[in-house]
Protein backbone atom coordinates (compact mmCIF):
# COMPACT_ATOMS: atom_id res chain seq x y z
CA UNK A 1 0.00 0.00 0.00
CA UNK A 2 1.26 3.36 -0.85
CA UNK A 3 0.51 6.21 1.39
CA UNK A 4 1.26 9.60 0.05
CA UNK A 5 0.35 12.41 2.31
CA UNK A 6 0.63 15.87 1.07
CA UNK A 7 1.12 18.90 3.14
CA UNK A 8 0.42 22.00 1.18
CA UNK A 9 2.46 25.00 2.07
CA UNK A 10 1.37 28.37 0.88
CA UNK A 11 3.90 31.15 0.90
CA UNK A 12 4.60 34.30 -1.01
CA UNK A 13 6.91 34.50 -3.97
CA UNK A 14 8.95 37.62 -3.75
CA UNK A 15 8.41 39.32 -7.04
CA UNK A 16 11.73 40.48 -8.37
CA UNK A 17 11.50 44.02 -9.60
CA UNK A 18 12.59 42.98 -13.10
CA UNK A 19 13.85 46.42 -13.98
CA UNK A 20 16.88 44.95 -15.75
CA UNK A 21 14.64 42.86 -17.98
CA UNK A 22 12.81 46.04 -18.81
CA UNK A 23 16.06 47.81 -19.67
CA UNK A 24 17.14 44.97 -21.94
CA UNK A 25 13.80 44.94 -23.77
CA UNK A 26 13.92 48.70 -24.01
CA UNK A 27 17.32 48.60 -25.72
CA UNK A 28 15.93 45.95 -28.04
CA UNK A 29 12.87 48.06 -28.85
CA UNK A 30 14.97 51.14 -29.61
CA UNK A 31 17.32 49.04 -31.76
CA UNK A 32 14.39 47.70 -33.80
CA UNK A 33 13.07 51.21 -34.33
CA UNK A 34 16.47 52.47 -35.48
CA UNK A 35 16.72 49.46 -37.79
CA UNK A 36 13.34 50.40 -39.30
CA UNK A 37 14.49 53.99 -39.76
CA UNK A 38 17.73 52.92 -41.45
CA UNK A 39 15.82 50.49 -43.63
CA UNK A 40 13.50 53.24 -44.85
CA UNK A 41 16.43 55.52 -45.63
CA UNK A 42 18.32 52.82 -47.53
CA UNK A 43 15.25 51.85 -49.52
CA UNK A 44 14.20 55.36 -50.52
CA UNK A 45 17.45 57.29 -50.86
CA UNK A 46 19.99 54.52 -51.06
CA UNK A 47 21.89 55.79 -48.05
CA UNK A 48 21.61 55.81 -44.31
CA UNK A 49 19.34 58.72 -43.41
CA UNK A 50 21.17 61.74 -42.03
CA UNK A 51 18.73 62.13 -39.20
CA UNK A 52 19.32 58.59 -37.99
CA UNK A 53 21.63 59.51 -35.15
CA UNK A 54 19.31 62.22 -33.89
CA UNK A 55 16.28 59.99 -34.23
CA UNK A 56 17.95 57.05 -32.51
CA UNK A 57 19.30 59.20 -29.71
CA UNK A 58 15.95 60.94 -29.29
CA UNK A 59 14.08 57.67 -28.99
CA UNK A 60 16.72 56.15 -26.72
CA UNK A 61 16.54 59.25 -24.53
CA UNK A 62 12.76 59.01 -24.28
CA UNK A 63 12.91 55.33 -23.46
CA UNK A 64 15.75 55.90 -21.01
CA UNK A 65 13.92 58.68 -19.19
CA UNK A 66 10.80 56.55 -18.98
CA UNK A 67 12.83 53.62 -17.71
CA UNK A 68 14.67 55.68 -15.08
CA UNK A 69 11.41 57.20 -13.89
CA UNK A 70 9.92 53.74 -13.49
CA UNK A 71 13.06 52.54 -11.72
CA UNK A 72 12.81 55.42 -9.29
CA UNK A 73 9.09 55.87 -8.75
CA UNK A 74 7.50 52.52 -9.57
CA UNK A 75 10.23 49.92 -9.00
CA UNK A 76 7.93 46.91 -9.06
CA UNK A 77 5.91 47.91 -12.10
CA UNK A 78 5.29 45.58 -14.99
CA UNK A 79 8.48 45.10 -17.04
CA UNK A 80 6.79 44.83 -20.42
CA UNK A 81 4.46 47.81 -20.73
CA UNK A 82 7.15 50.42 -21.27
CA UNK A 83 9.25 48.56 -23.90
CA UNK A 84 6.15 47.52 -25.84
CA UNK A 85 4.90 51.09 -25.97
CA UNK A 86 8.34 52.35 -26.91
CA UNK A 87 8.55 49.86 -29.77
CA UNK A 88 5.19 50.94 -31.16
CA UNK A 89 6.10 54.59 -30.80
CA UNK A 90 9.47 54.11 -32.49
CA UNK A 91 8.00 52.03 -35.29
CA UNK A 92 5.30 54.65 -35.77
CA UNK A 93 7.94 57.39 -35.99
CA UNK A 94 9.86 55.45 -38.63
CA UNK A 95 6.74 54.91 -40.72
CA UNK A 96 5.60 58.51 -40.38
CA UNK A 97 9.05 59.61 -41.49
CA UNK A 98 8.84 57.18 -44.39
CA UNK A 99 5.56 58.78 -45.50
CA UNK A 100 7.10 62.23 -45.12
CA UNK A 101 9.75 61.21 -47.65
CA UNK A 102 7.18 60.18 -50.22
CA UNK A 103 6.78 62.70 -53.04
CA UNK A 104 3.23 61.60 -53.76
CA UNK A 105 2.29 62.18 -50.16
CA UNK A 106 4.03 65.54 -50.16
CA UNK A 107 1.87 66.54 -53.11
CA UNK A 108 -1.37 66.16 -51.14
CA UNK A 109 -2.98 69.40 -50.00
CA UNK A 110 -2.13 70.60 -46.51
CA UNK A 111 0.84 68.28 -46.16
CA UNK A 112 3.13 68.90 -43.22
CA UNK A 113 6.13 66.83 -42.34
CA UNK A 114 4.92 65.00 -39.28
CA UNK A 115 7.88 62.95 -38.05
CA UNK A 116 9.72 65.65 -36.10
CA UNK A 117 6.45 66.88 -34.62
CA UNK A 118 5.57 63.35 -33.65
CA UNK A 119 8.93 62.96 -31.89
CA UNK A 120 8.13 66.14 -29.96
CA UNK A 121 4.70 64.82 -29.03
CA UNK A 122 6.27 61.55 -27.91
CA UNK A 123 8.61 63.55 -25.69
CA UNK A 124 5.60 65.35 -24.24
CA UNK A 125 3.92 61.99 -23.76
CA UNK A 126 6.89 60.52 -21.89
CA UNK A 127 7.04 63.70 -19.82
CA UNK A 128 3.39 63.18 -18.91
CA UNK A 129 4.19 59.56 -18.01
CA UNK A 130 6.91 60.74 -15.67
CA UNK A 131 4.54 63.31 -14.16
CA UNK A 132 1.88 60.63 -13.64
CA UNK A 133 4.40 58.36 -11.90
CA UNK A 134 5.70 61.26 -9.84
CA UNK A 135 2.41 62.84 -8.83
CA UNK A 136 0.24 59.77 -8.51
CA UNK A 137 1.79 57.91 -5.59
CA UNK A 138 -1.21 55.67 -5.20
CA UNK A 139 -3.88 55.09 -7.80
CA UNK A 140 -6.54 54.92 -5.10
CA UNK A 141 -6.29 58.68 -4.76
CA UNK A 142 -8.13 58.89 -8.07
CA UNK A 143 -11.11 57.30 -6.42
CA UNK A 144 -11.75 60.54 -4.54
CA UNK A 145 -12.34 62.32 -7.79
CA UNK A 146 -15.01 59.93 -9.13
CA UNK A 147 -17.70 62.51 -9.81
CA UNK A 148 -15.36 65.37 -10.60
CA UNK A 149 -13.79 63.21 -13.28
CA UNK A 150 -17.25 62.52 -14.68
CA UNK A 151 -17.85 66.26 -15.05
CA UNK A 152 -14.42 66.83 -16.58
CA UNK A 153 -14.89 63.97 -19.03
CA UNK A 154 -18.34 65.20 -20.05
CA UNK A 155 -16.94 68.68 -20.52
CA UNK A 156 -14.11 67.37 -22.69
CA UNK A 157 -16.51 65.31 -24.74
CA UNK A 158 -19.03 68.08 -25.27
CA UNK A 159 -16.46 70.78 -25.98
CA UNK A 160 -15.72 69.84 -29.62
CA UNK A 161 -19.40 70.27 -30.51
CA UNK A 162 -18.86 74.01 -30.44
CA UNK A 163 -15.96 73.93 -32.84
CA UNK A 164 -16.26 73.56 -36.58
CA UNK A 165 -16.15 70.06 -38.02
CA UNK A 166 -12.84 68.87 -39.41
CA UNK A 167 -13.23 66.31 -42.19
CA UNK A 168 -16.81 65.71 -41.21
CA UNK A 169 -16.27 64.90 -37.55
CA UNK A 170 -16.35 67.30 -34.65
CA UNK A 171 -13.78 65.77 -32.38
CA UNK A 172 -11.14 68.46 -32.44
CA UNK A 173 -10.88 71.76 -30.68
CA UNK A 174 -8.71 74.42 -32.18
CA UNK A 175 -6.68 76.65 -29.95
CA UNK A 176 -5.21 79.50 -31.97
CA UNK A 177 -1.44 79.42 -31.92
CA UNK A 178 -1.22 76.00 -30.28
CA UNK A 179 -2.89 73.75 -32.75
CA UNK A 180 -5.72 71.27 -32.54
CA UNK A 181 -6.42 68.98 -29.65
CA UNK A 182 -8.56 65.89 -29.67
CA UNK A 183 -10.04 65.99 -26.17
CA UNK A 184 -11.70 62.62 -26.59
CA UNK A 185 -8.35 60.87 -26.15
CA UNK A 186 -7.91 62.38 -22.72
CA UNK A 187 -11.58 61.94 -21.84
CA UNK A 188 -11.05 58.21 -22.40
CA UNK A 189 -8.71 58.00 -19.41
CA UNK A 190 -10.69 60.34 -17.20
CA UNK A 191 -13.98 58.60 -17.80
CA UNK A 192 -12.37 55.26 -16.92
CA UNK A 193 -11.71 56.73 -13.48
CA UNK A 194 -15.37 57.68 -13.15
CA UNK A 195 -16.65 54.30 -14.31
CA UNK A 196 -14.30 52.48 -11.95
CA UNK A 197 -15.27 54.58 -8.95
CA UNK A 198 -18.96 54.43 -9.74
CA UNK A 199 -19.16 50.71 -10.48
CA UNK A 200 -17.13 49.84 -7.43
CA UNK A 201 -19.85 51.33 -5.25
CA UNK A 202 -22.85 50.24 -7.27
CA UNK A 203 -21.82 46.81 -8.45
CA UNK A 204 -23.65 44.84 -5.79
CA UNK A 205 -26.94 46.49 -6.64
CA UNK A 206 -26.33 45.88 -10.32
CA UNK A 207 -25.23 42.28 -9.87
CA UNK A 208 -27.58 40.93 -7.25
CA UNK A 209 -30.92 42.57 -7.85
CA UNK A 210 -32.00 40.72 -10.93
CA UNK A 211 -34.45 38.13 -12.15
CA UNK A 212 -33.41 35.06 -14.04
CA UNK A 213 -35.05 34.61 -17.40
CA UNK A 214 -33.97 32.14 -20.09
CA UNK A 215 -30.54 31.72 -18.57
CA UNK A 216 -29.94 35.45 -18.45
CA UNK A 217 -30.03 37.67 -15.44
CA UNK A 218 -32.36 40.49 -16.24
CA UNK A 219 -31.57 43.61 -14.25
CA UNK A 220 -34.36 45.56 -12.66
CA UNK A 221 -35.69 48.49 -14.63
CA UNK A 222 -34.22 51.11 -12.36
CA UNK A 223 -30.78 49.51 -12.46
CA UNK A 224 -30.79 49.98 -16.21
CA UNK A 225 -30.50 53.71 -15.56
CA UNK A 226 -26.72 54.09 -15.79
CA UNK A 227 -26.28 51.97 -18.90
CA UNK A 228 -29.14 53.82 -20.58
CA UNK A 229 -27.55 57.14 -19.68
CA UNK A 230 -24.15 56.18 -21.05
CA UNK A 231 -25.84 54.78 -24.13
CA UNK A 232 -27.84 57.95 -24.69
CA UNK A 233 -24.72 59.98 -24.24
CA UNK A 234 -22.74 57.96 -26.74
CA UNK A 235 -25.62 58.29 -29.21
CA UNK A 236 -25.50 62.05 -28.66
CA UNK A 237 -21.80 62.03 -29.49
CA UNK A 238 -22.58 60.06 -32.60
CA UNK A 239 -25.30 62.47 -33.69
CA UNK A 240 -23.71 65.79 -32.83
CA UNK A 241 -20.06 65.01 -33.40
CA UNK A 242 -20.67 62.35 -36.05
CA UNK A 243 -17.85 60.29 -34.62
CA UNK A 244 -18.62 56.60 -34.54
CA UNK A 245 -15.23 55.81 -32.98
CA UNK A 246 -15.49 57.74 -29.71
CA UNK A 247 -19.11 56.78 -29.33
CA UNK A 248 -18.26 53.10 -29.68
CA UNK A 249 -15.23 53.47 -27.42
CA UNK A 250 -17.12 55.00 -24.51
CA UNK A 251 -20.07 52.68 -24.67
CA UNK A 252 -17.86 49.62 -25.17
CA UNK A 253 -15.66 50.58 -22.27
CA UNK A 254 -18.66 50.99 -20.00
CA UNK A 255 -20.08 47.61 -20.99
CA UNK A 256 -16.72 45.90 -20.45
CA UNK A 257 -16.34 47.43 -17.00
CA UNK A 258 -19.97 46.68 -16.12
CA UNK A 259 -19.43 43.06 -17.09
CA UNK A 260 -16.22 42.77 -15.09
CA UNK A 261 -17.76 44.47 -12.06
CA UNK A 262 -20.94 42.39 -11.96
CA UNK A 263 -19.97 39.11 -13.68
CA UNK A 264 -23.30 39.14 -15.49
CA UNK A 265 -23.22 38.10 -19.14
CA UNK A 266 -26.55 39.78 -19.67
CA UNK A 267 -24.88 43.20 -19.70
CA UNK A 268 -22.81 42.19 -22.71
CA UNK A 269 -25.94 41.03 -24.51
CA UNK A 270 -27.73 44.27 -23.68
CA UNK A 271 -24.70 46.31 -24.64
CA UNK A 272 -24.31 44.66 -28.02
CA UNK A 273 -28.01 45.02 -28.78
CA UNK A 274 -28.07 48.64 -27.70
CA UNK A 275 -24.96 49.65 -29.63
CA UNK A 276 -26.18 47.87 -32.75
CA UNK A 277 -29.57 49.54 -32.46
CA UNK A 278 -27.96 52.92 -31.86
CA UNK A 279 -25.51 52.67 -34.73
CA UNK A 280 -28.13 51.45 -37.19
CA UNK A 281 -30.60 54.09 -36.03
CA UNK A 282 -28.16 56.95 -36.42
CA UNK A 283 -26.88 55.65 -39.74
CA UNK A 284 -30.36 56.10 -41.23
CA UNK A 285 -30.28 59.87 -40.98
CA UNK A 286 -26.70 61.02 -40.48
CA UNK A 287 -24.98 61.53 -43.86
CA UNK A 288 -21.42 61.35 -42.52
CA UNK A 289 -22.07 58.00 -40.88
CA UNK A 290 -23.97 56.82 -43.95
CA UNK A 291 -20.97 57.59 -46.12
CA UNK A 292 -18.76 55.52 -43.90
CA UNK A 293 -21.15 52.61 -44.02
CA UNK A 294 -21.37 52.83 -47.81
CA UNK A 295 -17.58 52.91 -48.02
CA UNK A 296 -17.43 49.86 -45.81
CA UNK A 297 -20.05 47.80 -47.66
CA UNK A 298 -18.76 48.48 -51.12
CA UNK A 299 -15.43 50.30 -51.17
CA UNK A 300 -14.69 49.75 -54.85
CA UNK A 301 -18.10 50.88 -56.02
CA UNK A 302 -17.44 54.45 -54.97
CA UNK A 303 -14.12 54.70 -56.79
CA UNK A 304 -13.78 58.17 -58.23
CA UNK A 305 -17.13 59.23 -56.80
CA UNK A 306 -16.80 59.17 -53.05
CA UNK A 307 -13.53 60.08 -51.38
CA UNK A 308 -14.22 57.91 -48.34
CA UNK A 309 -14.84 54.83 -50.50
CA UNK A 310 -11.80 55.44 -52.62
CA UNK A 311 -9.58 55.82 -49.59
CA UNK A 312 -10.97 52.62 -48.15
CA UNK A 313 -10.39 50.78 -51.41
CA UNK A 314 -6.80 52.04 -51.58
CA UNK A 315 -6.21 50.83 -48.06
CA UNK A 316 -7.49 47.36 -48.97
CA UNK A 317 -5.28 47.32 -52.04
CA UNK A 318 -2.29 48.27 -49.93
CA UNK A 319 -2.93 45.28 -47.69
CA UNK A 320 -3.31 43.09 -50.74
CA UNK A 321 -0.12 44.25 -52.40
CA UNK A 322 1.78 43.61 -49.20
CA UNK A 323 1.06 39.92 -49.23
CA UNK A 324 2.60 37.67 -46.62
CA UNK A 325 6.04 39.16 -46.20
CA UNK A 326 5.45 42.70 -47.40
CA UNK A 327 7.23 44.87 -49.89
CA UNK A 328 9.85 46.05 -47.43
CA UNK A 329 9.94 49.34 -45.57
CA UNK A 330 9.95 52.33 -47.90
CA UNK A 331 9.12 50.26 -50.95
CA UNK A 332 5.34 50.16 -50.89
CA UNK A 333 2.80 52.43 -52.53
CA UNK A 334 0.59 53.03 -49.51
CA UNK A 335 1.32 56.75 -49.84
CA UNK A 336 -1.30 56.71 -52.61
CA UNK A 337 -3.92 56.77 -49.87
CA UNK A 338 -3.00 60.41 -49.52
CA UNK A 339 -5.01 62.19 -46.88
CA UNK A 340 -4.67 60.64 -43.39
CA UNK A 341 -2.21 58.03 -44.65
CA UNK A 342 -0.01 58.68 -41.63
CA UNK A 343 -2.76 58.84 -39.03
CA UNK A 344 -5.98 56.85 -39.44
CA UNK A 345 -4.60 54.73 -42.27
CA UNK A 346 -1.10 54.13 -40.97
CA UNK A 347 -1.87 50.45 -40.55
CA UNK A 348 -2.24 50.16 -44.31
CA UNK A 349 1.42 51.13 -44.61
CA UNK A 350 2.36 48.59 -41.97
CA UNK A 351 0.32 45.99 -43.81
CA UNK A 352 1.85 46.74 -47.18
CA UNK A 353 5.48 47.19 -46.24
CA UNK A 354 5.74 44.59 -43.48
CA UNK A 355 3.12 42.25 -44.89
CA UNK A 356 0.89 39.90 -42.97
CA UNK A 357 3.86 38.72 -40.91
CA UNK A 358 4.73 42.22 -39.71
CA UNK A 359 1.09 43.13 -39.21
CA UNK A 360 0.56 40.13 -36.97
CA UNK A 361 3.64 41.04 -34.95
CA UNK A 362 2.43 44.62 -34.48
CA UNK A 363 -1.04 43.46 -33.49
CA UNK A 364 0.54 40.98 -31.09
CA UNK A 365 2.48 43.81 -29.49
CA UNK A 366 -0.83 45.63 -28.97
CA UNK A 367 -2.27 42.41 -27.65
CA UNK A 368 0.60 42.04 -25.20
CA UNK A 369 0.01 45.55 -23.87
CA UNK A 370 -3.64 44.68 -23.30
CA UNK A 371 -2.64 41.36 -21.73
CA UNK A 372 -0.32 43.11 -19.28
CA UNK A 373 -3.14 45.51 -18.43
CA UNK A 374 -5.52 42.66 -17.73
CA UNK A 375 -2.83 40.84 -15.73
CA UNK A 376 -2.38 44.00 -13.70
CA UNK A 377 -6.11 44.07 -13.06
CA UNK A 378 -6.03 40.45 -11.91
CA UNK A 379 -3.10 41.09 -9.60
CA UNK A 380 -4.41 44.35 -8.16
CA UNK A 381 -5.66 43.95 -4.62
CA UNK A 382 -8.24 46.73 -4.47
CA UNK A 383 -11.46 46.67 -6.50
CA UNK A 384 -10.99 50.22 -7.74
CA UNK A 385 -7.54 49.42 -9.14
CA UNK A 386 -8.89 46.26 -10.75
CA UNK A 387 -11.70 48.09 -12.47
CA UNK A 388 -9.52 51.00 -13.53
CA UNK A 389 -6.90 48.69 -15.03
CA UNK A 390 -9.59 46.72 -16.86
CA UNK A 391 -11.21 49.90 -18.09
CA UNK A 392 -7.96 51.36 -19.40
CA UNK A 393 -6.76 48.19 -21.08
CA UNK A 394 -10.29 47.54 -22.37
CA UNK A 395 -10.47 50.97 -23.95
CA UNK A 396 -7.02 50.42 -25.45
CA UNK A 397 -8.16 47.10 -26.90
CA UNK A 398 -11.41 48.53 -28.25
CA UNK A 399 -9.55 51.40 -29.86
CA UNK A 400 -7.09 49.03 -31.55
CA UNK A 401 -9.95 46.84 -32.72
CA UNK A 402 -12.02 49.73 -34.04
CA UNK A 403 -9.13 51.29 -35.95
CA UNK A 404 -7.62 48.06 -37.27
CA UNK A 405 -11.06 46.68 -38.11
CA UNK A 406 -11.95 49.90 -39.88
CA UNK A 407 -8.79 50.05 -41.97
CA UNK A 408 -9.07 46.38 -42.90
CA UNK A 409 -12.71 46.70 -43.88
CA UNK A 410 -14.13 44.55 -41.10
CA UNK A 411 -16.29 47.33 -39.64
CA UNK A 412 -17.12 50.83 -40.89
CA UNK A 413 -14.15 53.14 -40.63
CA UNK A 414 -14.12 55.54 -37.74
CA UNK A 415 -12.04 58.57 -37.11
CA UNK A 416 -9.76 57.20 -34.44
CA UNK A 417 -6.04 56.84 -34.36
CA UNK A 418 -3.96 53.78 -33.74
CA UNK A 419 -2.44 54.25 -30.27
CA UNK A 420 1.28 55.19 -30.39
CA UNK A 421 1.78 54.39 -34.06
CA UNK A 422 -0.40 56.99 -35.78
CA UNK A 423 0.62 60.60 -36.16
CA UNK A 424 -1.34 62.78 -33.78
CA UNK A 425 -0.29 64.62 -30.68
CA UNK A 426 -3.31 64.07 -28.44
CA UNK A 427 -3.34 60.36 -29.08
CA UNK A 428 0.34 59.80 -28.32
CA UNK A 429 0.34 61.99 -25.22
CA UNK A 430 -2.88 60.49 -23.83
CA UNK A 431 -1.72 56.93 -24.43
CA UNK A 432 1.59 57.52 -22.65
CA UNK A 433 -0.42 58.79 -19.70
CA UNK A 434 -2.57 55.66 -19.90
CA UNK A 435 0.56 53.51 -19.76
CA UNK A 436 1.71 55.61 -16.79
CA UNK A 437 -1.44 54.84 -14.83
CA UNK A 438 -1.22 51.15 -15.69
CA UNK A 439 2.42 51.15 -14.52
CA UNK A 440 1.36 52.77 -11.26
CA UNK A 441 -1.39 50.19 -10.64
CA UNK A 442 0.92 47.31 -11.53
CA UNK A 443 3.59 48.68 -9.21
CA UNK A 444 1.10 48.63 -6.35
CA UNK A 445 -0.13 45.19 -7.32
CA UNK A 446 3.29 43.57 -7.66
CA UNK A 447 4.95 45.22 -4.71
CA UNK A 448 5.82 42.48 -2.21
CA UNK A 449 3.36 42.45 0.63
CA UNK A 450 4.70 44.14 3.76
CA UNK A 451 5.82 41.80 6.53
CA UNK A 452 2.75 40.49 8.32
CA UNK A 453 1.75 42.47 11.37
CA UNK A 454 2.75 40.73 14.57
CA UNK A 455 -0.06 38.40 15.44
CA UNK A 456 -2.09 39.81 18.32
CA UNK A 457 -2.29 36.46 20.08
CA UNK A 458 1.34 35.59 19.65
CA UNK A 459 2.25 36.25 23.23
CA UNK A 460 -1.00 35.46 24.90
CA UNK A 461 -0.83 31.86 25.94
CA UNK A 462 2.07 30.85 28.05
CA UNK A 463 2.39 27.69 29.95
CA UNK A 464 3.92 28.30 33.29
CA UNK A 465 5.26 25.25 34.97
CA UNK A 466 6.16 25.15 38.59
Amino acid sequence: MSVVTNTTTIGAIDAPSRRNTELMLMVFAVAISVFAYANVGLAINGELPSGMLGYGLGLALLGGIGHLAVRKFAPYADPLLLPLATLLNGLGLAIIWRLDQSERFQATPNFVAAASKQLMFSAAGVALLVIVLLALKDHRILQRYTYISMLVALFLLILPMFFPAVNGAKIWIKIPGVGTIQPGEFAKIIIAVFFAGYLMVKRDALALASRRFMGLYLPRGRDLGPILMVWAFSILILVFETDLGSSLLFFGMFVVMLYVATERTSWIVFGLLMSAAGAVGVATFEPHVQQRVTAWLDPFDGWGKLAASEQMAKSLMAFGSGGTLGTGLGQGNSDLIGFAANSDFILATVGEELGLAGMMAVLLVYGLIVERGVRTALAARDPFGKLLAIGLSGSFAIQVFVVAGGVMGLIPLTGMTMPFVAAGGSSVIANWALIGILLRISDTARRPAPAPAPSPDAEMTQVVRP
Partner: protein
Amino acid sequence: MSELTLTVMRLGFLAVLWLFVIVAVQVIRSDLFGTRVTQRGSRRTATDARPPQARQNAAAPPQQRQQPGRQRRGAPTKLVVSEGSLTGTTVALQGQTITLGRAHDSTIVLDDDYASSRHARIYPDRDGQWIVEDLGSTNGTYLDRTRLTTPTPVPLGAPIRIGKTVIELRK
Protein backbone atom coordinates in the same frame (compact mmCIF):
# COMPACT_ATOMS: atom_id res chain seq x y z
CA MET B 1 20.96 49.90 -52.87
CA SER B 2 21.06 46.45 -54.32
CA GLU B 3 17.94 44.37 -54.46
CA LEU B 4 19.57 41.66 -52.39
CA THR B 5 20.47 43.93 -49.48
CA LEU B 6 16.94 45.26 -49.35
CA THR B 7 15.44 41.79 -49.40
CA VAL B 8 17.76 40.69 -46.62
CA MET B 9 16.86 43.80 -44.62
CA ARG B 10 13.15 43.27 -45.21
CA LEU B 11 13.23 39.67 -44.01
CA GLY B 12 15.69 40.55 -41.27
CA PHE B 13 13.38 43.25 -39.97
CA LEU B 14 10.45 40.87 -39.81
CA ALA B 15 12.62 38.32 -38.02
CA VAL B 16 13.76 40.89 -35.48
CA LEU B 17 10.21 42.10 -34.93
CA TRP B 18 9.04 38.58 -34.24
CA LEU B 19 12.06 37.92 -32.06
CA PHE B 20 10.99 40.87 -29.93
CA VAL B 21 7.49 39.45 -29.58
CA ILE B 22 8.90 36.04 -28.64
CA VAL B 23 11.28 37.53 -26.08
CA ALA B 24 8.40 39.51 -24.61
CA VAL B 25 6.33 36.34 -24.31
CA GLN B 26 9.27 34.59 -22.67
CA VAL B 27 9.44 37.40 -20.13
CA ILE B 28 5.76 36.87 -19.38
CA ARG B 29 6.39 33.16 -18.98
CA SER B 30 9.06 33.74 -16.39
CA ASP B 31 7.14 36.56 -14.75
CA LEU B 32 5.64 34.64 -11.91
CA PHE B 33 4.67 36.26 -8.69
CA GLY B 34 1.94 35.95 -6.15
CA THR B 35 1.23 32.84 -4.16
CA ARG B 36 3.45 29.79 -4.29
CA VAL B 37 1.83 26.48 -3.51
CA THR B 38 4.28 23.72 -2.75
CA GLN B 39 3.24 20.12 -2.58
CA ARG B 40 5.43 18.21 -0.21
CA GLY B 41 4.99 14.55 -0.76
CA SER B 42 6.18 12.33 2.05
CA ARG B 43 5.92 8.63 2.48
CA ARG B 44 6.19 6.00 5.07
CA THR B 45 5.40 2.77 3.30
CA ALA B 46 6.63 2.70 -0.20
CA THR B 47 5.63 0.37 -3.01
CA ASP B 48 6.00 0.56 -6.74
CA ALA B 49 2.51 1.83 -7.18
CA ARG B 50 3.57 5.37 -6.49
CA PRO B 51 3.64 8.18 -9.01
CA PRO B 52 6.97 8.56 -10.81
CA GLN B 53 7.46 12.08 -9.49
CA ALA B 54 7.49 10.89 -5.93
CA ARG B 55 9.88 8.09 -6.77
CA GLN B 56 12.82 10.46 -6.80
CA ASN B 57 11.96 11.74 -3.38
CA ALA B 58 11.74 8.21 -2.12
CA ALA B 59 15.43 7.67 -2.68
CA ALA B 60 16.27 9.72 0.37
CA PRO B 61 13.83 8.48 3.00
CA PRO B 62 15.40 5.08 3.87
CA GLN B 63 17.72 6.59 6.41
CA GLN B 64 15.24 9.23 7.32
CA ARG B 65 12.72 6.61 8.15
CA GLN B 66 14.88 5.31 10.92
CA GLN B 67 15.25 8.75 12.36
CA PRO B 68 12.20 8.95 14.59
CA GLY B 69 14.00 6.33 16.56
CA ARG B 70 12.84 2.85 17.29
CA GLN B 71 9.74 3.13 15.32
CA ARG B 72 7.67 0.15 16.03
CA ARG B 73 5.44 -1.73 13.71
CA GLY B 74 1.99 -0.28 13.80
CA ALA B 75 3.20 3.21 14.60
CA PRO B 76 0.91 5.90 13.22
CA THR B 77 2.09 7.59 10.03
CA LYS B 78 -0.38 10.38 9.69
CA LEU B 79 -2.75 12.56 11.55
CA VAL B 80 -6.21 12.88 10.08
CA VAL B 81 -8.89 15.40 10.92
CA SER B 82 -12.09 13.39 10.89
CA GLU B 83 -14.64 15.95 12.02
CA GLY B 84 -14.96 19.69 12.00
CA SER B 85 -14.34 22.32 9.35
CA LEU B 86 -10.96 20.87 8.41
CA THR B 87 -12.30 17.36 7.79
CA GLY B 88 -10.05 15.46 5.43
CA THR B 89 -6.86 17.32 6.22
CA THR B 90 -3.94 15.01 6.78
CA VAL B 91 -0.53 15.78 8.11
CA ALA B 92 2.33 13.34 7.82
CA LEU B 93 3.92 12.37 11.13
CA GLN B 94 7.65 12.66 10.70
CA GLY B 95 8.82 13.14 14.21
CA GLN B 96 7.91 16.79 14.31
CA THR B 97 5.75 18.44 16.92
CA ILE B 98 2.30 19.29 15.68
CA THR B 99 0.65 22.25 17.28
CA LEU B 100 -3.05 22.81 17.18
CA GLY B 101 -4.86 26.06 17.82
CA ARG B 102 -6.27 29.18 16.36
CA ALA B 103 -2.91 30.96 16.19
CA HIS B 104 -1.78 31.47 12.61
CA ASP B 105 1.50 29.71 13.12
CA SER B 106 0.02 26.48 14.33
CA THR B 107 0.63 23.39 12.24
CA ILE B 108 -3.10 22.90 12.07
CA VAL B 109 -4.91 26.19 12.33
CA LEU B 110 -8.30 25.46 13.84
CA ASP B 111 -11.16 27.65 12.72
CA ASP B 112 -13.22 26.73 15.72
CA ASP B 113 -14.84 29.01 18.26
CA TYR B 114 -14.19 26.53 21.03
CA ALA B 115 -10.45 26.25 20.44
CA SER B 116 -7.84 28.38 22.15
CA SER B 117 -5.11 30.05 20.14
CA ARG B 118 -2.52 27.59 21.48
CA HIS B 119 -4.72 24.67 22.28
CA ALA B 120 -2.75 21.47 22.25
CA ARG B 121 0.28 19.80 20.80
CA ILE B 122 1.07 16.33 19.62
CA TYR B 123 4.67 15.16 19.71
CA PRO B 124 6.64 11.94 19.76
CA ASP B 125 8.50 10.98 22.91
CA ARG B 126 11.84 9.26 22.85
CA ASP B 127 10.36 5.87 22.10
CA GLY B 128 8.48 7.18 19.10
CA GLN B 129 5.23 7.06 21.01
CA TRP B 130 2.96 9.98 20.12
CA ILE B 131 1.86 12.09 23.03
CA VAL B 132 -0.93 14.65 23.13
CA GLU B 133 -0.67 17.50 25.58
CA ASP B 134 -3.17 20.17 26.40
CA LEU B 135 -1.57 23.63 26.48
CA GLY B 136 -3.82 25.14 29.09
CA SER B 137 -6.79 25.59 26.78
CA THR B 138 -10.05 27.09 27.95
CA ASN B 139 -12.33 24.32 26.83
CA GLY B 140 -10.00 21.42 27.16
CA THR B 141 -8.76 18.60 24.96
CA TYR B 142 -10.49 15.26 25.14
CA LEU B 143 -9.02 11.88 24.35
CA ASP B 144 -11.98 9.59 23.78
CA ARG B 145 -14.20 11.00 26.48
CA THR B 146 -11.73 11.98 29.13
CA ARG B 147 -10.40 15.49 29.50
CA LEU B 148 -6.64 15.61 29.41
CA THR B 149 -4.77 16.87 32.40
CA THR B 150 -1.34 15.49 31.70
CA PRO B 151 0.51 14.55 28.51
CA THR B 152 -1.05 11.28 27.44
CA PRO B 153 0.03 8.70 24.85
CA VAL B 154 -2.33 8.49 21.91
CA PRO B 155 -3.42 5.05 20.81
CA LEU B 156 -3.91 4.44 17.11
CA GLY B 157 -7.35 5.59 15.99
CA ALA B 158 -8.41 7.15 19.26
CA PRO B 159 -10.34 10.37 18.68
CA ILE B 160 -8.81 13.55 20.07
CA ARG B 161 -11.54 16.12 20.41
CA ILE B 162 -10.88 19.84 20.40
CA GLY B 163 -14.06 21.89 20.29
CA LYS B 164 -15.90 20.62 17.22
CA THR B 165 -12.79 19.15 15.65
CA VAL B 166 -11.86 15.49 15.98
CA ILE B 167 -8.39 14.25 15.14
CA GLU B 168 -7.10 10.71 14.85
CA LEU B 169 -3.71 9.16 14.33
CA ARG B 170 -3.75 6.55 11.62
CA LYS B 171 -1.38 4.15 10.05
